[in-house]
């Protein structure tokens, strides 16, 4: 019974790391298993308490050019891969989708990089601070045309999106609020060194916004919006759908919206409450979300412990539907079932092929299932299948699939079943484990077990988080 509880706790911690990060390596997982769920959660949600200097050193050695659009993508992927603060990166990704800004229009990778740093800085703090920082962010100002928002010719783009997409959601404001809000943001411009308040272009007149009247500027609008009840609900719903469930109950959303109010708009407190909720640790939540390309790719790279991030990875992820720093629209990525639409699904399978055929690293045989099978003393096809099903999909596969995989592993290259004891070399390591670390020479076994891992990585449950 204690073992059963331990297994359940361990599985919940892995579930937490998958959702609060991008998967894990065994070395990353071990300390979290040691500390238990609540301490793990505490550590993940207070990233500043975790030393991340190793990542800083690694980053300093990479010589990225932050004015290069490809390099900023590689920089961020590198962070996702090697950070010791996974939730910090996951939150940054969440806000990148929320305050969706695209370099396709901004055409300034450096500004996009600075925006990313600004998001990371405020990702767990008070929402008001993040919203104000985004309202003053040069990339955002360019993206939503606030550079052209002038006293006598207001541009309503930012004022509209700040209500529709960043705070309350549609249906909670009027067209007049958009017009008045736009007036408050006039003169909010950007210069190469950051935000610039162009006083001469600011409309200093009185405005009536969401029922309040005053000589409002952008900061006042941010304050008013952050204090709306609808904002708490909107953010709670969006955070829950990103981290926990696609269709949360009203009571769950209300609960997290309540945390927003009680904690004085603290985002970290909201995220902690989501992960601490029974809604998150329940079996209904497990494997209920579809992995985004970021989660799929980084998770797989972590499982295989690839140490070199291939130059092609950002392009491959874009082909899967998630082009970092270039979300498809102001709404960000729709996610959910769109991640596995027919046009992008094949890209996932190709990525799995690329991974298992070792095109990602110069390490020889780093991904050798046959070696693992030998090292672990797996003595039958069933044991081998169970081992990899456990590692890759937490055993979440129907019995019929398991049976077919066993049949695949215990049949020769022509699909003909082999008799026991098998004389075919494929069974050699099954019956006689090789010395630890020694690679089996047999190519058939190698191909069969690589095929097994590839098949598991193309299972529906492997696409789930």
């Amino acid at each position, binding site marked *: 019974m204690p073992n059963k509880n331990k297994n359940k706790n361990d599985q919940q911690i892995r579930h937490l790391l998958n959702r609060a990060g991008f998967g894990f390596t*065994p070395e990353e997982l071990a300390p979290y298993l040691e500390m238990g769920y609540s301490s793990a959660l505490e550590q993940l949600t207070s990233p500043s308490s975790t030393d991340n200097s190793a990542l800083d050193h690694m980053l300093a050695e*990479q010589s990225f050019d932050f*004015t290069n659009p490809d390099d900023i993508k*590689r920089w961020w992927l590198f962070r996702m891969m090697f950070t010791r603060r996974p939730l910090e990166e996951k939150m940054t990704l969440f806000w990148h989708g929320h305050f969706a800004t695209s370099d396709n229009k901004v055409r300034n990778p450096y500004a996009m990089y600075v925006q990313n740093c600004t998001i990371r800085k405020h990702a767990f703090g008070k929402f008001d601070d993040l919203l104000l920082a985004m309202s003053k962010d040069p990339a955002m100002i360019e993206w939503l045309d606030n550079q052209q928002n002038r006293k006598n010719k207001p541009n309503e783009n930012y004022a509209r999106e700040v209500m529709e997409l960043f705070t309350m959601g549609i249906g909670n404001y009027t067209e007049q609020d958009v017009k008045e809000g736009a007036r408050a943001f006039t003169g909010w411009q950007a210069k190469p060194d950051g935000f610039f308040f162009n006083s001469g272009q600011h409309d200093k007149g009185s405005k009536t916004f969401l029922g309040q009247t005053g000589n409002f500027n952008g900061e006042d609008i941010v304050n008013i919006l952050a204090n709306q009840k609808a904002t708490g609900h909107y953010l709670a719903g969006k955070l829950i759908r990103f981290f926990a469930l696609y269709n949360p109950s009203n009571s769950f959303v209300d609960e997290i919206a309540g945390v927003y109010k009680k904690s004085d708009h603290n985002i970290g407190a909201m995220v902690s409450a989501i992960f601490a909720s029974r809604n998150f640790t329940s079996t209904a939540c497990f494997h209920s979300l579809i992995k985004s390309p970021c989660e799929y790719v980084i998770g797989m790279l972590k499982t295989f412990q690839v140490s070199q991030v291939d*130059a092609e990875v950002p392009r491959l992820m874009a082909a899967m539907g998630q082009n970092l720093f270039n979300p498809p629209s102001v709404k960000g990525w729709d996610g959910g079932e769109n991640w596995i639409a027919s046009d992008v699904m094949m890209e996932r399978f190709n990525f799995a092929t690329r991974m298992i055929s070792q095109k990602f690293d110069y*390490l020889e045989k780093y*991904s050798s299932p046959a070696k693992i099978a030998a090292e672990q003393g797996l003595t039958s096809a069933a044991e081998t299948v169970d081992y990899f099903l456990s590692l890759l999909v937490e055993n979440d596969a129907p019995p019929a699939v398991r049976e077919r995989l066993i049949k695949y592993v215990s049949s020769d290259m022509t699909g003909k079943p082999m008799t026991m004891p098998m004389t075919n070399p494929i069974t050699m390591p099954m019956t006689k484990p090789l010395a630890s670390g020694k690679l089996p020479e047999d190519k058939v076994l190698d191909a069969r077990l690589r095929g097994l891992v590839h098949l598991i990585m193309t299972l529906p449950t492997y696409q789930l988080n």
Partner: protein
Amino acid sequence: MSKLVALLLLIICLSAYGQGEALAKSISVHSRSPFAVGNFFSASAAAAVKPSVEKRPGPKDVIGQQLVDANPTLEQVRLIPSLDGPQRKQVNELFNVYRSDLKLLNEQLRPLREEFKARLKSEKEKFDKEKQDRDKLAKEKLSQEKLAKEKQEQTKAELAKFVPAKEEEDAAIIAVVAKIKERQNQFTQALSKVVSPTQMLELEQLRRGKVPAYAQ
């Protein structure tokens, strides 16, 4: 009575054995946990290699490599925070002239490179055609076996005969490439007269990832 004691003893023994076996099985399963340290894919080998990001390789051909411009782009120079209004104007003008000059030179270079590639292709085709004709003639004269042997040797020798001309050795191309390089150098000089070394250092710091205080 003694039978009953023996039966009880047997039950106790079997139960102890069963427990022992279960424990052994649980230890064995635990050590095989795919999530245990060292049980993923090649942990030790991966740990021995420093994490890194592979950069996209630059141009593969020699001319492409020669043409790589070390000068910053206008978009990059515009990022320099301390660049003042008049400097911005001068920089814009410099880049306008530079870009149009380079456009002209590249227009000169493009047909030369295309012509070179076409020439290379036709030389190869001519070479292959002659080889085919010779093979055909030989086929008529020699037996299949002999032909195969001869053909093998001949192919080796003939392949060695065909040495494609190198693009970088083509005089016309060299001349234009030299002009482009010269123009790049001139531009470096001109830019350094408008943008101070301190400002170039500012740009370098941005390129290396320095962020303004508000984003730190």
